[in-house]
């Protein structure tokens, strides 16, 4: 992670790429902690669901425990992201993710999802992904809890909860797989979720209606490491 305010004066010898802050440290923690929990639940869930895979593991009770508690922990990173002075920027981004402008719909319908000139800090795909995950978590927690602690509920609820849990799990696998594939196809965007900063040129081209310094961040000149030219998702703390 690059210190956000690290400024290196340009020297004639090095090529300097201007970058802007896209995600604060708290936002990156929120993203990656949620990602670890969702992936853990998805993988243990797949093993418990697919009979031939289940047969390969003889500690099924442990898998079940890991599955249940990684699911129940999913809101914890969000609560933590709201727990301190870092909450303002988290909140500002959640607000941006919530609101869909007419430009977002145009971007969604456009051939090849080219940026157009209407996309803000998040495009409609990123907004849809965030909304899906935010809806998936309470649905999976509620249905999973009914499956696990079914005693107080009518039996039909257990069947219904199993039904919802199964289909939502399949949808989540598709959405998360798509999210990861898109991230790997756009290294600068993935890099910004790893290091927090993104090149000013990328921000201008892909998020023209986002003004990066609007919420206080000042564009700074970060020193690019040689590696970050080819592999921007690797550490840039050169």
């Amino acid at each position: 992670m690059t210190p956000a305010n690290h400024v290196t004066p340009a020297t004639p010898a090095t090529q300097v790429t201007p970058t802007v802050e896209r995600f604060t440290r708290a936002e990156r923690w929120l993203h990656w902690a949620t990602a670890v929990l969702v992936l853990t639940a998805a993988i243990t869930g797949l093993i418990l669901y697919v009979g031939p895979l289940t047969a390969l593991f003889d500690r099924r009770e442990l898998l079940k425990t890991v599955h249940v508690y990684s699911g129940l922990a999913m809101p914890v990173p969000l609560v933590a992201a709201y727990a301190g002075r870092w909450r303002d920027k988290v909140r500002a981004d959640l607000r941006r993710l919530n609101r869909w402008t007419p430009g977002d719909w145009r971007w969604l319908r456009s051939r090849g999802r080219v940026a157009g000139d209407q996309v803000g800090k998040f495009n409609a795909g990123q907004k849809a992904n965030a909304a899906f995950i935010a809806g998936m978590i309470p649905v999976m927690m509620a249905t999973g809890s009914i499956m696990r602690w079914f005693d107080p509920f009518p039996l039909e609820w257990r069947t219904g909860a199993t039904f919802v849990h199964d289909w939502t799990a399949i949808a989540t696998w598709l959405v998360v797989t798509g999210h990861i594939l898109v991230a790997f196809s756009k290294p600068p965007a993935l890099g910004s979720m790893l290091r927090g900063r993104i090149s000013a040129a990328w921000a201008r081209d892909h998020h023209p209606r986002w003004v990066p310094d609007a919420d206080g961040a000042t564009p700074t000149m970060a020193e690019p490491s040689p590696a970050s030219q080819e592999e921007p998702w690797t550490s840039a703390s050169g």
Partner: protein
Amino acid sequence: MDHTLGPVEHPLEADRGPAPERPAPPRGDKDEGRGAPVGRRIVLGMVGLGAAGILVGDRVNAALERFFRPVTENDPTGLTSFVPSAGRFRIYSVVSFDPVRSDAEYRLTVDGLVDTPLKLSLADLKDRPPTKLVKDFQCVTGWRVPEVPWTGVLLRDLLEEAGVQSNATHLRIYSFDGAYTESLTLDQARRDDVMAAYEMLDGPVEQIHGGPVRLYVAPMYGYKSLKWLDRIEVVDEMNPGYWEVRGYDVDAWVGSSNGREGDAPT
């Protein structure tokens, strides 16, 4: 822990408060903070659909299963077994380890109120007249696997061989997982669709399905068909089984118990 659909914490509802409390759109962002709150609508829509699914999912599931059945029954690839509602087995166990017993070391004990206690190897069981059934397997949690082939020895034949004493009324059945038990009345156990099965799905009963030998009680919900069958004790009182202690019906007829009147009898 979230047991209900009650107030659920999620990010896009975070700015739900009255308008004056909302943070102003970040200064300078050209139109951030404007536009419809589609994100929140997606979240609330999913929560609403999820709640509806919990309430009516058992019926939707049954309808989907009927719809899928012609496809799943003629699917040589087996891929459809990964689709929910497509009639697939789910593996349940009540213990934290995998109960394993090899074919060679397997023994089935029949004892209690009998004249001649039995201790039968897998080969002994296969020497006795086999019974073949093709019948559905219905779980009390809603899933159903249609037309499963079963081969085994009727409990009736084993009980007759052991010689049940006149004061006996029930069976207490034990799994070699060390935890699971089941109960049957003698009348239920003597039906011609209740067996100690050693073949299932056209092959030996797999370990995850309760092999080498499991119970198959065709007319009842799956929890009666105890896996990893170890011992059948003939007794003179009803001892509720593992799940029956936990609230399931002792007489678990498919379609007329456990509040599941919609299931077709197996």
